[in-house]
Every structure is written in structure tokens, then in C-alpha cells.
């Protein structure tokens, strides 16, 4: 199983890679990781403070490794992974609340690669991330799909099995709710 060639792996579906992983192929998991890490990372980075992004991302893939044997394929792997990511993000905020850590990250976290690493920009990012966490799940999800995963609206409509008009309407309501939360927190 380990001798799966690189080109074969790249063309192989998630479902087949999962089967190969269950049969003992570490290379199959590496391929899954390589394929899905960028989107998981983007999604996590959008909602988690910069200093914790890699840690949370790694925890998600450790959870994937532990759960793959019980993955029954009722949903697509990508959808299942998004749900798992959302759970891990929620867990991060639950733990953070329990520890009563301040919303703002220490300034040592200001080593990000994003626009504006000034304390003000970091505060603003965390302020927006806090507002995103307060949104209903379907609102937060459409914002993440469009901004973090950079999906087009027609792709989001396909993924969520809604028509394009409903998707656009949901997006507008989501942005409106986010705006209200941002205004409230001022």
C-alpha cells in the first residue's frame, strides 16, 4: 500500500484514500492532509487568534486520525472535516472562556503574516473574530465559505444544496447580522 505513486494519489478520491489509510497506508493520510490542510488552515485562521492557529489546526488533524476508522462516509469527507473544524473551534473558545483568558492576544502573537501586524490591527482582527463567533451557525458558515475558503456563490449554493438566490439572500442577512454585532460591541 505504501508504494502508491504520487500521481495516483493526487487523482484518488478522498473515499479511496480513507479506505487505503484504514488498510494501513500512511501515505494515504499524508495525501489527505496535503489536500485538505490549506482549507482547514484558512478556516481556522479566520476565526482563531493568530498565535493559536497552527495548534488548533493540528488538533483537528489529530482528531481526524483518531476518527477515520469510524468515518462511515454518510457525508462527503470535506463536509465532515468542516463540521469537525467547527467543533474544534467551538471547543477552543469554550476552553478559553473557562480559563477566563482575555479576548486580546498577547503582543508576542503579533508575528502574523496578515495585513497589519500593529496592535490595533490585531485587536481589530480579534474583535471581528469575536463577532463572528456570536453569529448563528448558518450565517458564520456562509461567511467562512466565501471569505476564508474563497468559494464562489454558485459553488456555495451547490455545496449547501440551495438555489443561488437563497444563498445570496443568506449572505446578505449574514453580513447584516455581523454588522449589528460589530456595532453592538463598539
Amino acid at each position: 500500500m505504501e508504494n502508491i505513486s504520487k500521481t495516483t494519489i493526487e487523482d484518488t478520491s478522498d473515499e479511496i484514500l480513507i479506505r487505503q489509510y484504514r488498510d494501513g497506508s500512511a501515505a494515504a493520510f499524508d495525501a489527505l492532509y496535503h489536500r485538505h490542510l490549506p482549507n482547514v488552515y484558512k478556516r481556522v485562521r479566520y476565526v482563531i487568534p493568530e498565535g493559536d492557529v497552527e495548534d488548533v489546526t493540528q488538533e483537528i488533524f489529530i482528531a481526524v486520525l483518531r476518527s477515520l476508522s469510524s468515518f462511515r462516509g454518510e457525508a462527503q469527507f470535506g463536509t465532515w472535516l468542516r463540521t469537525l473544524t467547527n467543533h474544534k473551534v467551538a471547543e477552543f473558545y469554550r476552553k478559553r472562556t473557562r480559563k477566563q483568558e482575555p479576548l486580546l492576544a498577547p503582543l508576542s502573537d503579533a508575528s502574523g503574516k496578515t495585513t497589519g501586524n500593529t496592535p490595533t490591527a490585531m485587536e481589530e482582527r480579534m474583535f471581528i473574530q469575536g463577532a463572528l463567533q456570536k453569529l448563528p451557525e448558518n450565517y458564520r458558515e456562509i461567511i467562512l465559505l466565501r471569505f476564508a475558503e474563497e468559494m464562489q456563490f454558485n459553488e456555495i449554493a451547490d455545496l449547501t444544496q440551495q438555489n443561488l438566490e437563497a444563498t445570496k439572500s443568506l449572505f446578505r442577512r449574514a453580513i447584516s447580522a455581523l454588522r449589528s454585532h460589530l456595532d453592538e460591541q463598539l
Partner: protein
Amino acid sequence: MKQSTERFDPERDNRLTEFTDQVMEGKMEQPDSNADDELLGLEKTILRLNHFLPPVSLDESAIKQMQVRLNARMRREVRESRAPFWKKWFSYPARPQLLAGVVTAGLLILLVVFLPLSAGDGSTAGAALKPIGSTVLVAAVVAGVLYIFWIMRRK
């Protein structure tokens, strides 16, 4: 203003999604001057999101580095999972509450053992044990309280 955002409004939906597409493609950096107040507010929110949380991409080397760190972490976790159960159960970061519980149980046992000795029955028998029992009891209670206080502070 808030009410109109809830109603079915395909024109606004289209304008906002088109604006978003343009912002994401880097073709728009200012709100649309023709927008009404509500749309203007939403467009400003889109610009704010895109400015402070811009899209990122992981390059190949970053993916490989993260994969190496994940493998190292997995190996460490496997090693730790092979450690004797008592070591895992009582290690401080893993189960501070359990450890605190064991200490509290120990204190209770000390109380049960030493309380009758220190209370005494009025006779002189075992009188020599009284001060020792009381001292140990007081010391144990103080140590226990301090320990639990320390645990709470660490959390």
C-alpha cells in the same frame, strides 16, 4: 433599516454579492457611491472583513513543515499513551482535580485517624499522643488548604 435587511430583496442580494466578488478580486477598495445607507453599511463591513482578515494561502514548504510537526506530535502522543496508567492519571497537567481529590481523601483519613486521639476521653491513657495528634491534624489541614488554593490559582 434593520427590518429591510430581513425581507426578500433580490436586487440588494445581487448588488452585495457582486460587490463582494469585486472586493475579493481586488477590483474594489471603496464602497459603491450609488449604494443606499443600508447597502453602504454592508459594503463597509465587507471591506472591513477583507482588510483585516484577507485571504491567505499556504505554500508547499509551509504545508510540509506543518506535516513534519504533526507527525512529531503524533509520535509524542503515541509514546505518552504507552506510559503506565497511574503516571498519566496523576500527572499534574492531565488531572489536577484527581490529584487534589486524592490529597483531600488523604486529609479525611488523617482526620478520622487522629480526631479520636486528639479529642480524648478524659482519661490519662494515650495523653502523650494528644499534642502530636493535634499538631499533625492542624499541619495536614493547613497543607491541604494551601495545596488546593495553589491548584485553583494555577488553573
